[in-house]
């Protein structure tokens, strides 16, 4: 039985806390058809740039487009893999070095689908969501993040 899914908010203000990740995991304990969860967490790195050391990233987004795109990606990945659940959270605003800025969470009966879906989601999120990271430096300059 398929339920109609509608776009939902993926953005959270500031860093994603380990506690909220734990809550999200715990919420799945009633879904006893799940055999494997795959999680990806993006963490802000304190890279050394010629202009200074990164101490935080300030994220901004074209929110309406990002939510539409995220929904499109969700639907495509749900159609491709036999998943029980899928959750995507991305930070907006300032996230300090060492804090979590991206949380992608897939669950499936068997591990392979969860893992492959999670990998694909992360790649698509980085490539296709209109989100920008401004790297705040300890020199009080900033540089715009470039995804590899």
């Amino acid at each position, binding site marked *: 039985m398929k339920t109609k899914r509608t776009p939902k908010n993926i953005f959270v203000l500031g860093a994603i806390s380990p506690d909220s990740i734990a809550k999200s995991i715990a919420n799945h304990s009633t879904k006893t058809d799940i055999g494997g969860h795959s999680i990806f967490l993006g963490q802000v790195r304190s890279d050394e740039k010629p202009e200074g050391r990164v101490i935080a990233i300030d994220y901004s987004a074209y929110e309406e487009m990002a939510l539409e795109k995220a929904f499109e990606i969700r639907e495509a990945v749900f159609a491709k893999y036999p998943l029980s659940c899928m959750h995507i959270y991305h930070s907006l605003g300032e996230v300090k070095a060492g804090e979590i800025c991206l949380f992608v969470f897939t669950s499936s009966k068997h591990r392979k689908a969860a893992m492959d879906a999670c990998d694909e989601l992360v790649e698509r*999120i980085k490539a296709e969501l209109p*989100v*920008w990271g401004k790297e705040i430096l300890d020199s009080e300059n900033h540089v715009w*993040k470039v*995804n590899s």
Partner: protein
Amino acid sequence: MTKANLSGFVKRKMETKEQKITVKAFGMIAEKFGSGQIELTGISTIEELRKALFDQFPELKNMKFSIAINKQLASGNASIPDGSEIALLPPFSGG
């Protein structure tokens, strides 16, 4: 009046009306040109939009960006419907 004539008439009328679009900028483009939005009139294709933008903001010529029309990435010389929301999108760097 035949049906063909009527639709011809309507088409001419629309062409004479100046269409209006909204342009928003993001990321490093917003930083350079302000994060508010501007309104442009008389622009109905991506080519016309680029020309108008480069006239007004020459620095844009040296910046890499995509253009979205109503939240969909536009390719080539797509036409821009009246009332569209245009977005100037530098390379994404989320995650």
